[in-house]
């Protein structure tokens, strides 16, 4: 006779998660807290950038001014840094894509030996304090003459962006039914043609998200650029660091807003591609 497990009275510790109304309320609470957490500092930043006079304990500035904006936008160093940042980021993104798209495809489709190990290998630069990596990279750059060069900065940025892009494109290609590709082959397409006609268009949302991450990561990178790019290749965040250390708070605020704007703009443009699964893949869930 089959032994029947005695029926246990169900003790539900998670009743408050199971109750839909409770869940909705928790979700709102959590979402609200998150918005406050992210929104308040950003809002403060905007207020500071327009502040003429703002002393404790006032909640908002007592005088408004465009002085700081004028000061920043008239500073030639700022304009140079902006131009540099936005000429480096597209190049970094493009080169990353050229490497990461084939790599992602290979990881997703081909029988790459030690696939997981290789993918994890990509993460190593993220696993240790970056500054150590950058210092040793700077030593290498000195030896091969890449220090304080445009390409030196580009390659440094790519260390980080390659990880995002390879992981996201791997997940994207894996989510595409291999039969779609086979059907193209069956209809007479060469492997390359099948890739460009079927796989690439279907992978485009994931690739766009990955490119977005790469672009923003490049625009944001400061530590490494500071080490290998000075004195001639000063990007926006590097300049921002300098400004913060000279305690010009409103100027730094203006600068931060300037730095955040392109990111916000890109996110708004690309939000319809931001499926959570791609983002999750970027965070290491392949």
């Amino acid at each position, binding site marked *: 006779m089959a032994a029947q497990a005695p029926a246990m009275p169900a003790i539900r510790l998670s009743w408050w998660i199971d109750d839909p109304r409770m869940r909705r309320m928790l979700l709102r609470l959590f979402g609200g807290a998150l918005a406050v957490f992210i929104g308040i500092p950003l809002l403060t930043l905007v207020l500071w950038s327009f502040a003429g006079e703002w002393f404790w304990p006032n909640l908002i500035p007592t005088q408004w001014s465009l002085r700081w904006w004028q000061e920043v936008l008239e500073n030639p160093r700022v304009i140079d840094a902006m131009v540099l940042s936005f000429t480096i980021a597209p190049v970094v993104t493009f080169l990353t894509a050229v490497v990461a798209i084939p790599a992602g495809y290979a990881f997703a489709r081909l029988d790459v030996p030690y696939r997981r190990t290789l993918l994890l290998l990509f993460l190593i630069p993220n696993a240790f304090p970056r500054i150590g990596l950058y210092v040793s990279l700077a030593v290498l750059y000195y030896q091969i003459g890449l220090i304080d060069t445009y390409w030196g900065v580009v390659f440094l940025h790519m260390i980080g962006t390659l990880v995002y892009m390879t992981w996201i494109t791997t997940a994207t290609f894996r989510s595409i039914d291999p039969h*779609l590709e*086979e*059907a193209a082959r069956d209809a007479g*397409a060469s492997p390359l043609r099948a890739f460009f006609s079927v796989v690439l268009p279907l992978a485009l949302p994931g690739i766009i998200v990955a490119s977005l991450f790469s672009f923003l990561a490049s625009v944001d990178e400061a530590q490494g650029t500071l080490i290998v790019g000075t004195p001639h290749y000063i990007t926006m965040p590097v300049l921002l660091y300098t400004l913060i250390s000279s305690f010009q708070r409103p100027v730094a605020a203006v600068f931060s807003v300037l730095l955040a704007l392109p990111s916000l703009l890109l996110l708004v443009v690309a939000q319809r591609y931001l499926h959570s699964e791609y983002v999750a893949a970027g965070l290491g869930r392949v």
Partner: protein
Amino acid sequence: MAEVELRHVTKGYKDTTAVDDVSLAIKDREFVALLGPSGCGKTTTLRMLAGFIRPDAGQILIDGRGVTDLPPEHRPTAMVFQSYALWPHMTVADNIAFGLRLRRLPQAEVADRTARMLDVVGLPGVTKRYPSQLSGGQQQRVALARALVLGPKILLLDEPLSNLDAKLRVRMRDEIRRIQQELQITTVYVTHDQEEALTMADRIAVMNRGVLQQVGDALDIYDRPATAFVADFIGSSNLLTGTLRLAGARPVAQVGDARIPVEADGLADGAAVTVSARPEDMEVLREAAPDAFRLDDTRLVNFGAYKRLLGRHPAFGQLEARVPKAFRLGDEPVYLRFTRARAFAGDERPRG
């Protein structure tokens, strides 16, 4: 003219043999069904025909020409996938025209052939829609049109109806057969559904565990199964294991204390056998007879057009018989007589 031939084709994966030395010749315009349970190697065989999988050994010939080493894009085959595999980012027209455009046909001809093929599959006027806007049955027709528009010599279908509901499946079954007859195209059809195979195919190739069990028309397969596996897989059968006795006037299988008269071609006396008898070859008696076996724990299962009588026998275990729909169970005992049973070599129960 389009003949296909598989010669001693074998394909293995790590520790299993997916397809084991399969040889099969398919004639021009013939509709052959590869039938078997999942994992029997039928899809692997089809994918080797299409060129997606390279056999480890053996040859594949189309019209006498070896195609074993050709990639799918260079084979005169067209495949309909189980998941349809329609390209979601292309309209129906673009899906169908894809192969034609690859061949650089003039625009007008592409449009003309696309429209004509949609007519053939009975789906005119959906050219501008996307696959996701179509029902499962419509997607199926588009997939069929996409395969046929290139005028392939061989049409390959991989369980094309398994994602449709029962009613639609029957309709698409007849439809596919009609189109195949109309276009006179050699067709290989993979299915695990015996009804599909029996109703559609000219010949059926039954596979199990990578081995081709039997090739024949529906009647052959049903009435003269070559192995116990085929007897069990096609239709349903009462299966018993016993020992063959050839001493008497006609061969009998000894199962426990009971003896069942069997057909046993070419088997030796004393051989371990599997006895198979179809439910319709069981006669139901209301009173004891010398060659009838009493059933206990009887019950009836209603199939609408007929009923099945199920019961237990101390030596045979569970038995079933097909009975008319008016059949009722009373208080009196019920006896079964085997009117036709076959013995197959080996006492191992066939497994899927």
